[in-house]
């Protein structure tokens, strides 16, 4: 195994395989100044979610639960098809349903978007993370959480322009979609892409996925969607999870997908500006982590830490934070 898989369709080989993603493949590591340069460059991968082909069946959610062996709770119906009602530490991906009446045609459109980690080329979570090695980025573009290094501070949630990570109430660590890094490492595509019956979710190299999207966009334009386009937002350096949207001129109609996501400039310069504070904080966190291990108590950050983190996010993103408005996507 030498490079990134190019599809999620193939079945696994029967012989044992060596993991293709190791420490030598990291290009970024949270709160780590002296990360050695990667020994090779893997071909960047991407998952492409074609919203116009998605039928909202939730096979992706189901596959995600099965592969990651999570246990989302049996909740209740609150008047929407979106279940569970939000991403959780047990639900890394979520179909968000939005009923939108197109003002130019007066026709209803039922917009169904698979929400989850976008695997930003420039990951706000990783930059905000004070715990060394809790968040890493591989040369193929996957942003992964290394749970044993996580201190549960929640900065990754604040740093994420898409409001994706969730902190487990059970083990106080952050969880999100891994882009099935464990599958990709052995030549397989993500479980959600494999399960998708209509191939609305496809997986391969970012180059291939971009080209595939062009064909889909041409088809949508021929069907009257003049603003169909690829969502690969430059504000976060592009993403390794991309959408084909019928209305790419207004991403926010898809359950508050940010029109122009950016990471906070403060987070961007975190290392530079607050290097020493950051290091000191890391020491504090490490101690906290140890205490956590002994007393099995939640990790806490101080109120000031919390406030400064919140401020940091508020000052940066020139639009509502997604979590404030996305809880009831169905009614959109």
């Amino acid at each position, binding site marked *: 195994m030498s490079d990134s898989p190019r599809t999620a369709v193939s079945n696994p080989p029967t012989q044992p395989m060596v993991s293709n993603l190791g420490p030598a493949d990291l290009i970024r590591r949270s709160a780590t100044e002296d990360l050695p340069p990667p020994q090779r460059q893997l071909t960047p991968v991407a998952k492409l979610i074609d919203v116009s082909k998605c*039928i909202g*069946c939730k096979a992706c959610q189901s596959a995600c639960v099965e592969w990651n062996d999570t246990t989302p709770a*049996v909740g209740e*119906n*609150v008047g929407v098809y979106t279940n*569970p009602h939000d991403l959780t530490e047990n639900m890394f991906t979520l179909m968000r349903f939005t*009923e939108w009446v197109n003002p130019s045609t007066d026709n209803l459109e039922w917009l169904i978007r698979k929400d989850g980690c976008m695997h930003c080329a420039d990951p706000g979570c990783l930059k905000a993370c004070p715990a060394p090695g809790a968040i890493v980025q591989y040369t193929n573009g996957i942003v992964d959480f290394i749970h044993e290094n996580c201190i549960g501070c929640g900065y990754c949630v604040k740093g994420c322009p898409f409001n994706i990570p969730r902190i487990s109430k059970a083990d106080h660590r952050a969880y999100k979609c891994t882009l099935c890094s464990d599958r990709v490492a052995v030549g397989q595509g993500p479980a959600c892409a494999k399960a998708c*019956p209509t191939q609305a979710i496809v997986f391969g190299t970012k180059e291939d996925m971009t080209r595939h999207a062009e064909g889909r966009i041409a088809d949508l334009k021929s069907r009257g969607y003049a603003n169909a386009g690829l969502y690969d937002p430059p504000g976060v350096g592009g993403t390794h999870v991309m959408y084909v949207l019928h209305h790419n001129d207004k991403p926010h109609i898809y359950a508050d997908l940010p029109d122009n996501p950016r990471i906070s400039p403060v987070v961007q310069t975190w290392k530079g500006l607050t290097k020493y504070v950051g290091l000191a904080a890391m020491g504090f966190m490490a101690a906290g982590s140890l205490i956590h291990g002994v007393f099995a108590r939640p990790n806490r950050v101080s109120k000031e830490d919390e406030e400064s983190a919140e401020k940091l996010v508020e000052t940066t993103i020139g639009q509502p934070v997604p979590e404030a408005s996305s809880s009831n996507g169905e*009614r959109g």
Partner: protein
Amino acid sequence: MTNSWTDIRNTDLVVVMGGNAAEAHPCGFKWVTEAKAHRGAKLIVVDPRYTRTASVSDFYAPIRQGTDIAFLLGVIKYCIDNDKVQWEYTKAFTNASYIVKEGFGYSDGLFTGYDEEKRDYNRTTWDYEIGEDGFAVTDPTLQHPRCVWNLLKQHVAVYTPEMVERICGTPRDKFLRVAQMISECSSPTKTMTSMYALGWTQHSHGAQNIRAMAMLQLILGNIGVRGGGMNALRGHSNIQGLTDIGLMSHLLTGYLNMPTEQETDFEIYMRSRQFRPLRPGQTSYWQNYRKFMVSFQKAMWGDAATAENQWGYEFLPKLDVPAYDVLRMFELMGAGRVNGYFCQGFNPMLAFPNRGKITASLSKLKFLVTMDPLETETARFWENHGEYNEVDTRSIQTEVFQLPTTCFAEEEGSLTNSGRWLQWHWAGGSPPGEAKHDTWIMAQIFLRMRELYRKEGGAFPDPILNLSWNYHDPNEPEPEELAKEINGRALTDLSDPADPSRVQVAAGKQLLNFSQLRDDGSTMCGVWIYSGCWNEAGNNMARRGTEDPDGTGAYLNWSFAWPLNRRTLYNRASADLQGRPWDPSRKLLEWDGTKWTGYDVPDIAPTARPDQVMPFIMNQEGVSRLFTRGMLRDGPFPAHMEPFESPVPNVMNPRMRGNPVARVFQSDLSQFGNADEFPFAATSYRLTEHFHYWTKHNRVNAALQPEFFVEISEELAALRQVVNGGWVRVWSKRGSVKAKAVVTKRIRPLNCDGRVVHVVGIPLHWGFVGAAKKGFGPNSLSPFVGDANIETPEYKAFLVNLEPTTAPGVQS
């Protein structure tokens, strides 16, 4: 399906009406997305709700449930009026030119011959004029006023766009857009596929819904061609297999009929099944009925089936009623006329209408046996679950035996999919706990019963004692043995009909296919249409070849499709009277001057000349039927009928309730509700997150759609002051349920004949056992009446009322 799932990718237009393929058949729906992505195909959805399928459609039109016939006859009228007919196909391959008997007519919503007392038609005028030569009289010029084409034109004349809007509530402009898009497929180089499911069958006029679309497809020339067809999306992985193998009280295997008590001997039984051709030179393949029947009887009783005892004809049960369908069984049970009930792999407590009646009926049984891999509500019908199952347990004396069975993944065998593919599968796990294969359980019951009959005799032990049971292990017949029996084998050396000195098949060998069946007792075959599935070449159902020459989607080396591995039925109709494909780019078959060649197994004798033998070989006419003679009880043409519970009167005849010939039991007459008391039009359906009542046992599915709900429009919510996510009570004449309300823009009120019709959508996945939250099913509300021809219950259209309420168990 006339075609196959993989063929759908060849279409230009997908019409999903009477179904919700993306929601209920998400895996098969991939072929629609393929057609859209790679052929530029368009997708139309016509449905009371804006469904998941509608969410990826090119055009959506709303329709009031139960009015599809009016809509489709409106489209047929549009096509005729606008000369959008595939004329060459229609003239050659349908009965458009056949002359109908004098006296046939239609007025006030009824065809000639109606007897209100009997709720039945005298169908003698619903037939062709027969000439002195014994053949049907035709007028190829279509000038005769009583030719089928002119009668059809007359019949659909009333279904103008205005009338469609009045009946269906479909805005005129939306109807016209759909009609226009469909009519374009009259071109020989454009095809449309019809994908439908229970949205058409679960009506008291279900068979006629399907007829209406089939007629439209015929005049557009879309039957037998790639990317065309009438494609029934079967709701279980093996429900096609269920009907094929005859698990209905009025059927034997392969669509042979169960004899009736009037058919006192085999020759009388055969007399009405001679199926002589109605036109010169036609195939009328059912002429071979006797071969299929005798071979079936030999499969059942082996050496005990002899010419002398009419191949064991007396061993066959004889029907004293048209059918012992599920509605009749529970009616009889309720009347105390059924002692025991075997419930194998289904859940009547949630699956059959009017749950109150089902519970009362089960309570009158002496014993109930359930065979199921899962806990079912039926097995627990006697258990009090508060509001969810309010029964007085002590008053129920039924003894219940629960026999745990294996699920599909724990057993080997074949499943027949919608496209008639018999796909062999292998066990992926061992049976858990005390679970046993169904075959083991049934063998044990049979062996013990046979022993009792042997010892004690009884009124008529012969059918049981003589039943053929030659299995390696009588305690558990193996799937391979059963499959081979289904295929059939030679019992003696079969001589070659072309050269009697040659042996065609040696005694004991598997038959190649049903063409080798004989009516002299020298062959046996369990299911004639499946013959060929396991012949001397081996298990053809286990084939997994993925080659597909020229990308036609036929995949002839993948599994085995009945009949004869044919992938598209009536495929000879894909070519014209000279045998040239209508659309060369979509060739299926071609006449090379001496024989048929092409990508599929020809649905005609390989050397049958294209100008002489017509494509619809199962019909006595050789052509398809726009006018279906007396073969359906409720009319030779479809005609608009309202559901038994309708929010508006039938505009054709306000006195007429429902289908005028559908069977209604006396005890159910008073159980129909009216629009003044129950003003809202309800319908029921599945959701993608669940499969029927099974997956509520699975924590993942349960998390993805945890709780019973009903869907209503914002307008109805405002009218009844219902809040989104709040509790509502929904009740009909027969029962009451509580549900969460999903208030949605996807359902909008319809305007029908000046009245506002509110639609209430009721999904069906919840009950009182399982991992999901407790809930109800729509069958607590739906009426105990079925289709006039096949008794499929009317689940898709009934009346309810609705009000806000509090959670179950909480006093308001």
